[in-house]
């Protein structure tokens, strides 16, 4: 992994000031500075351009730049707020903010809904749920008979689709999550709170001399 040596004044494209981002997310300005160190590492891991490309994202998640994964694709697309195929620093911080323990639960619920709404039609359809179950099984090297998969999908869909209209809308999703809070357990990353303390290795490699830690 390459690390470019950059002067303090050379910011990555799409950089936003820490105090601006701190106002819009649950992070403090110094936590955002710590995130910038992480961001520079991730965004220069393959292409030294200060932007996180899909392969760099895959490299970070799976330690394999070419590993394809439906869910990683969805996360990447949601983080890429501008939709220009790369994740900039501002987008990175704003999106990670939803995963902060202090982020409002409505934001987490809404983010998860958009994640699972594979074709972004505003609903989660049965076929999409089935597609995701199959993707998880495939990722786990597990094979289940077709009718077993159908049974799993059927039961979940019936529980969630309370209006019984063949699709799950945001309202039904909210109710479903409130009844089953573990559905959004991966929407909270405890390490994001006090990140400067949790990851001193970032700060050691930081170019900032006046680190608060």
């Amino acid at each position, binding site marked *: 992994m390459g690390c470019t040596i950059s002067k303090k004044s050379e910011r990555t494209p799409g950089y936003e000031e820490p105090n601006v981002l701190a106002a819009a997310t649950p992070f403090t300005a110094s936590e955002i500075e710590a995130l910038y160190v*992480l961001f520079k590492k*991730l965004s220069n891991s393959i292409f030294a351009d200060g932007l996180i490309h899909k392969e760099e994202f895959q490299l*970070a*998640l*799976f*330690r*394999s730049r070419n590993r394809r*994964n*439906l*869910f*990683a*694709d*969805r*996360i990447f697309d949601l983080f890429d707020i501008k939709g220009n195929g790369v994740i900039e620093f501002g987008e990175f911080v704003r999106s*990670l903010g939803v*995963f902060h323990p202090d982020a409002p639960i409505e934001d987490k619920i809404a983010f998860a809904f958009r*994640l*699972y709404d594979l074709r972004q039609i505003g609903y989660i359809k049965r076929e999409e*749920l089935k597609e*995701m*179950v199959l*993707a*998880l099984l495939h*990722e*786990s*090297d*597990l*094979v*289940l*008979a*077709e*009718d*077993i998969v159908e*049974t*799993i*999908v059927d*039961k*979940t*869909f*019936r*529980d*969630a689709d309370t209006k019984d209209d063949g699709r799950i809308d945001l309202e039904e999703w909210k109710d*479903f999550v409130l009844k*089953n809070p*573990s*559905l*959004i*357990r*991966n929407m909270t*990353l405890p*390490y994001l709170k006090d990140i400067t303390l*949790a*990851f001193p*290795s970032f700060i050691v490699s930081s170019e900032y001399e006046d680190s608060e830690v």
Partner: protein
Amino acid sequence: MNAFEMITLSQGLNLSSLFDRQQDFIKRQTRFVSRKSAKVIISSIEAVAGSMGLKVHTRNFKTRLEGLSANKAGQFAAVIEVYEVAPSLFLVDVRKAAGDTLDYHKFYRSFCKKLEHIIWKPTESNAKHGLLRTKSCDS
């Protein structure tokens, strides 16, 4: 367990990997499927873990295994959760909780070998005996 819960097991949805140091990273997913009853699964896991010299603590379908690392120099811990995905079909998810990654993989290989009798590997013949179109479940 419902389908959305199962999906949350995906590595692609686990952003903590972005923050992991290199040596902590687990490359492969470690989970398997079983058609035995939950009781049999858990008691088998506990028995195998005990025979491997690990301390076992189970609560609510979640089992924690603890012990010393292979070289006795550090801690080792794994957490196992058993999920019912369909009647008589359980997904057993195994995760490292503490210790060296290499130790964990060695442990998992040995662990699975000893649990062969409960791990379900669908073959051409038994895949056809997958669940029949069942009446709706009460659970």
